[in-house]
C-alpha cells in the first residue's frame, strides 16, 4: 500500500517541480515550460416539492456531481510538447446514446463513457501521437461526432503530406435492462479511421478518408432491445481549393457500406469491400456528396452549399445524421454604408434554401423551405436598428390520411437600440419586438391551426464610468395564443455586477420574477435569484462559485392546486493555471 502511495506521489511531485522549473525559466525557448489548467468542481442540486407526494416536476440535474479537469501542456525544448486532456465526472448521467441510464459502470465503461475524456497527445515537431480519448474530425461525411478511446497518430511531414490513423473503442458493451429506469443497452464497438492527404496553405487540400466501425455481438447480455450488432465502412474523398480574391471550392464525395444486422447470414450478392467489410443480408450501400463554393472578403461573402445524403448512407462517425435528403442553400453577407472611420454602418446576413427529403423515393415526398434575413444598421453613435425575418415551411403528402402535412412558420423581429450619455454614465435602451406565426394543418380534417406569438422586450443598461457597479434592467411580455389555448408571460429582471476585494473578485447577481397565466386559470409565480463570484485567490488560482434558487408556485392550472417547488443549485470549483 505504501509502495502504491509512493507511486502516486512521485508523478505529483514531478509535476509540481516541473511547474516551479517552468516559472523560473525566462529564456525564449526554455528547456521546459508548462501551461494550461487543472481544476475540480462540485455541483449540488436540490429539489423540494409541496404538497408531499406530488410528482409534477422532475429533478433536472444529478443531486451531487464532482468534475475534474487536468489539461496542462508541457513543452520540452523547442520541438516536443505533451498536452494532457483529462476531464471526468464521478456520477454517470447519460440519457441519450449507448450508455443511457447506466447505473453502476465498470472501469472500462467509465473510461469510454462520453462524459469522460482521457487524452494525451505527445507531439514532436510534425508528428503527433494520439492516445486515449480523441474527438477527431476528418470530414463532414466520414467522421467527426464520435469520441474514441484508443491510439493513433497524426503526421504532417514536410512536403504538405498528412497521414492520420486511429483505432479504439467508441463504446463498451452494456446489457439491456428493463428497468426502471430502462437501459437500451449497446454492443462494444471498435472504430478505426485512416486519412491520407496533401495540402498547401491557402492553395489546396486533398484527402482520402476511410472509417470503419464494428460491433462485437457477444458483448451485451441480454442484448440491446432496439438495435442489432452493426458494421459500417465509409470512404470519402475531400478536396478544397482556394483561389485569388477569396474564391473557394470545397467538394466531398463519400460511399458507405453498412450492415444493420450482423446476425443475419453473409450474402455474396450484397455490397462488400474486402477485407474491410463483407456483405450480409442486411447490408446496404449508398452515396453522399457535399459541395460548397463562393467568395469571402472583408465586406462581401457569397456562397452556395449543396448536400446530398442517400437514404442508405450511414456512417458511424455521425450517428445522428439525417439520411435521404438534398439541401441547397444560398448564403450571403455584406457590409454597406461607409462611416467616417472607414468602417460600415450596415451589415446584412441572409440565407435562402430548400431541403428535399426522399430523394430515393422510399417515403413520401417532403419539402422544406428555409429563409433567414438579419439586417443590422448602426445609423450613428447613438442609434442602431436590427431587423430579422425567418421562415420555414414543411410539406408532405398525406399517405393514408386525407390531407397532407403542411406546417409554415414565420418570424419577424425588429430591435431598435439607443445609446446616450455623459462623462459619468452611458445609457443603453433597447427595445425588441417579435411576431411569430406558426400554422399547422390537421391531416384528418384539413383545418389549419394558427399559433401566434407576440414578444416585446425592453432593456435598460446604465454603464457608470466613475463607479464600479454595472446594473441592468429588463421587462418582457410574451403572449402565445391558438384556438382553445392562451399563454401570457411577464418577466421583470435585474442584474448587477461589481468588483470586490481590490478587484480580485468579480461578483454578479441577478433577480428575476416571472408571471405566467394559461387560459382562465389563476396565475403562476416564479422567482429566480442567482449569485456568481470569480475570486482570483492568487495569480494562479481562481475560486468560482455559483448559487441559484428557483421558486415556482402554480395557480389552479394543475392538480393539486397551488403546488410549488424550490430548486437550488450550487457550483463551486477551483481552477489552477499552470505556468506564468
Amino acid at each position, binding site marked *: 500500500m505504501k509502495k502504491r502511495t509512493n507511486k502516486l506521489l512521485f508523478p505529483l511531485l514531478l509535476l509540481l517541480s516541473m511547474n516551479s522549473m517552468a516559472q523560473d525559466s525566462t529564456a525564449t525557448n526554455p528547456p521546459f515550460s508548462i501551461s494550461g*489548467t487543472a481544476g475540480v468542481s462540485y455541483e449540488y442540486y436540490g429539489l423540494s416539492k409541496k404538497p408531499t407526494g406530488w410528482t409534477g416536476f422532475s429533478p433536472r440535474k444529478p443531486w451531487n456531481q464532482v468534475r475534474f479537469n487536468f489539461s496542462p501542456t508541457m513543452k520540452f525544448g523547442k520541438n516536443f510538447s505533451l498536452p494532457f486532456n483529462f476531464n471526468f465526472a464521478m456520477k454517470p448521467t447519460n440519457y441519450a446514446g449507448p450508455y443511457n441510464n447506466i447505473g453502476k459502470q465498470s472501469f472500462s465503461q467509465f473510461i469510454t463513457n462520453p462524459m469522460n475524456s482521457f487524452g494525451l497527445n505527445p507531439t514532436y515537431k510534425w508528428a503527433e501521437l494520439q492516445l486515449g480519448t480523441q474527438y477527431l474530425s476528418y470530414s463532414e461525411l466520414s467522421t467527426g461526432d464520435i469520441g474514441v478511446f484508443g491510439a493513433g497518430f497524426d503526421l504532417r511531414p514536410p512536403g504538405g503530406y498528412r497521414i492520420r490513423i486511429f483505432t479504439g473503442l467508441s463504446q463498451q458493451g452494456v446489457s439491456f435492462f428493463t428497468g426502471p429506469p430502462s437501459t437500451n443497452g449497446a454492443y462494444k464497438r471498435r472504430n478505426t479511421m485512416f486519412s491520407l492527404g496533401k495540402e498547401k496553405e491557402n492553395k489546396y487540400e486533398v484527402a482520402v478518408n476511410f472509417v470503419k466501425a464494428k460491433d462485437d455481438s457477444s458483448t451485451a447480455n441480454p442484448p440491446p432491445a*432496439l438495435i442489432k450488432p452493426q458494421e459500417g465502412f465509409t470512404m470519402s474523398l475531400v478536396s478544397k481549393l482556394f483561389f485569388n480574391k477569396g474564391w473557394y471550392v470545397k467538394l466531398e464525395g463519400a460511399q458507405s457500406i453498412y450492415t444493420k444486422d450482423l446476425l443475419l447470414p453473409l450474402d455474396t450478392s450484397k455490397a462488400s469491400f474486402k477485407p474491410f467489410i463483407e456483405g450480409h443480408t442486411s447490408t446496404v450501400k449508398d452515396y453522399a456528396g457535399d459541395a460548397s463554393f463562393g467568395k469571402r472578403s472583408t465586406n462581401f461573402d457569397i456562397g452556395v452549399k449543396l448536400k446530398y445524403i442517400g437514404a442508405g448512407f450511414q456512417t458511424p462517425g455521425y450517428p445522428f445524421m439525417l439520411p435521404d435528403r438534398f439541401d441547397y442553400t444560398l448564403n450571403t453577407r455584406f457590409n454597406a454604408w461607409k462611416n467616417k472611420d472607414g468602417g460600415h454602418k450596415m451589415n446584412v446576413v441572409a440565407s435562402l434554401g430548400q431541403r428535399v427529403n426522399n430523394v430515393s423515393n422510399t*417515403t413520401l415526398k417532403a419539402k422544406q423551405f428555409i429563409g433567414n434575413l438579419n439586417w443590422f444598421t448602426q445609423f450613428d453613435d447613438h442609434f442602431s436598428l436590427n431587423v430579422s425575418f425567418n421562415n420555414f415551411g414543411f410539406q408532405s403528402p398525406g399517405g393514408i390520411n386525407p390531407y397532407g402535412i403542411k406546417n409554415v412558420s414565420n418570424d419577424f423581429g425588429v430591435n431598435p437600440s439607443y445609446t446616450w450619455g455623459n462623462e459619468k454614465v452611458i445609457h443603453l435602451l433597447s427595445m425588441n419586438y417579435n411576431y411569430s406565426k406558426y400554422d399547422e394543418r390537421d391531416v384528418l380534417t384539413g383545418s389549419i391551426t394558427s399559433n401566434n406569438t407576440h414578444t416585446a422586450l425592453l432593456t435598460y443598461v446604465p454603464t457608470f464610468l466613475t463607479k464600479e457597479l454595472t446594473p441592468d434592467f429588463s421587462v418582457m411580455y410574451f403572449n402565445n395564443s391558438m384556438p382553445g389555448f392562451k399563454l401570457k408571460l411577464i418577466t421583470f429582471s435585474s442584474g448587477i455586477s461589481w468588483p470586490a476585494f481590490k478587484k480580485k473578485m468579480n461578483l454578479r447577481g441577478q433577480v428575476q420574477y416571472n408571471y405566467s397565466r394559461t387560459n382562465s386559470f389563476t396565475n403562476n409565480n416564479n422567482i429566480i435569484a442567482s449569485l456568481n463570484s470569480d475570486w482570483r485567490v492568487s495569480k494562479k488560482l481562481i475560486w468560482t462559485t455559483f448559487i441559484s434558487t428557483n421558486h415556482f408556485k402554480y395557480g389552479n392550472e394543475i392538480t393539486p392546486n397551488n403546488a410549488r417547488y424550490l430548486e437550488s443549485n450550487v457550483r463551486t470549483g477551483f481552477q489552477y493555471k499552470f505556468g506564468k
Partner: protein
Amino acid sequence: MHGIWRVMSVQDFNTSLENKTPIMKKLFLIAIICLSATICFAQFGVNLAVSPQPPGALLSWGTKDLTYIVSGGQPGAPPRQVLIKTTLTTSDGTPVATTNLSKARIKLVGQGTAVFYAADVIPLDAMVFTGKYKTSLDKTGKLPSGTYQLCVQLVTPVDFFPQAEERCRTFLLAAYQLPIPMMPANEDVMEAEKAQTAITFRWTPLAPKPAEQVKYIVTVFEVLDKQTPMQALRSNQPLLTKEIIGTTQFIWQPQLSFIKTKIWDEEPGANKDKLKAGDKPVKHVSGDPHVDTRAALDSIDATTFIWTIQTVNFNGIPFGDGNINGDGISEPNVFTVIKDNRRIKTGPPAKIIYQENMRKLKPGQQIYYPPIKKD
C-alpha cells in the same frame, strides 16, 4: 368416414372379369375421396395481420407490423413440417419478391397455435426481390414507397403442396421521416433576456402521419465547459424532458439563470501560442486575427445548449425505421444563449461568430471579435 366404409363392401372385391370395370371406377373414387380427406386433414386455420402502414425498412418490421397465426391440426398428432411461402406484389400485381423455397427455413406447426412474425414470413436471406425493388433494397434497406400486397401460404417442404389457404393483405409502405428540429435553428444565437422567459421549440412532424398516436419528447441538454455538443447529448442529464402530443411546438420556460461561472482565465489572444504546425488563423471580417473567440465568448456569458426530438408511439416504442441508433432520436440542433446583448449588436453577427467558433475552428485557431466600445 362412415360413407367410405359403406362404399367398400365385399362385393366390391370380386375380381371377376365382368366386375373389373366398375371395381376400377370405385377404387378410383375411393382414392380421390381418400386424397381429399388427407388434404382436408392437413388444412390449418391461418390468419394474417399486417399493419396498414408498417416501417419502410423491412428489417425494422416488428411484432406489431406483421403477424401470421397458424392454428388447427389434429389433437395429439405429431407436428408437421411446413414452409412459409410469401409473395409480395404491388397493388397493380407487379411481382416484387417471392420466397426462395429451397432456402426457406422449415417450421413446425400442428400442435396448438403457432405465431410467426416478419422475420419468419419475409426473411431477407430467403426472399428473392426483382428489378428496381432489389436495387432499392440493396441501396437503402427499404422498398420504394407505394401500396403493396403481401400473400402468405403454408406449403409442404419437398413438393411445396399447399397446406392452408393463401391469405393476402394490402398495406401502404412509406418510410417514416423522423422530425427535423427547426427552431431554434442549428447554431442560432439568442439573447438571455428573452431566453430567460421563454424559448419556443418547433420541429417538423413525423411523416407520414401514422395511424397510431405519436409522442414527441423534447429534450434539451446544457453543453458544459470542455464538452462538445454531441458529447453533452450523449452524456448529460437533460434540463428538459417534455412529452408533447398532437402538436409540433413547445414553449419552454427554462427557469434558469444564464450567468455563467467562468472557469477559463483566458484573456483574448491567450490561445495564440496553442496554434499547431499547419493550423491557419482564420481571418474574419476586417479584424485582428490574433484574438481568440473562445475567450471572447466566455467573457460574454455564453451558454450553449443542444436539443432534439425523440419520437415514440404511445407504448414508448421509438420510431427508428432504419436509423442506426434505433432510438427515434432526430439529428440535434445547437443554440447559444448570450447574456450581454450589446456584444451581439456591436460585433459581427453572433451567428457567424458561433459558427466559426464551434464548427470550423480547431482548438487554437482564431477569429476576430471586437471589444466593447465604452465611449
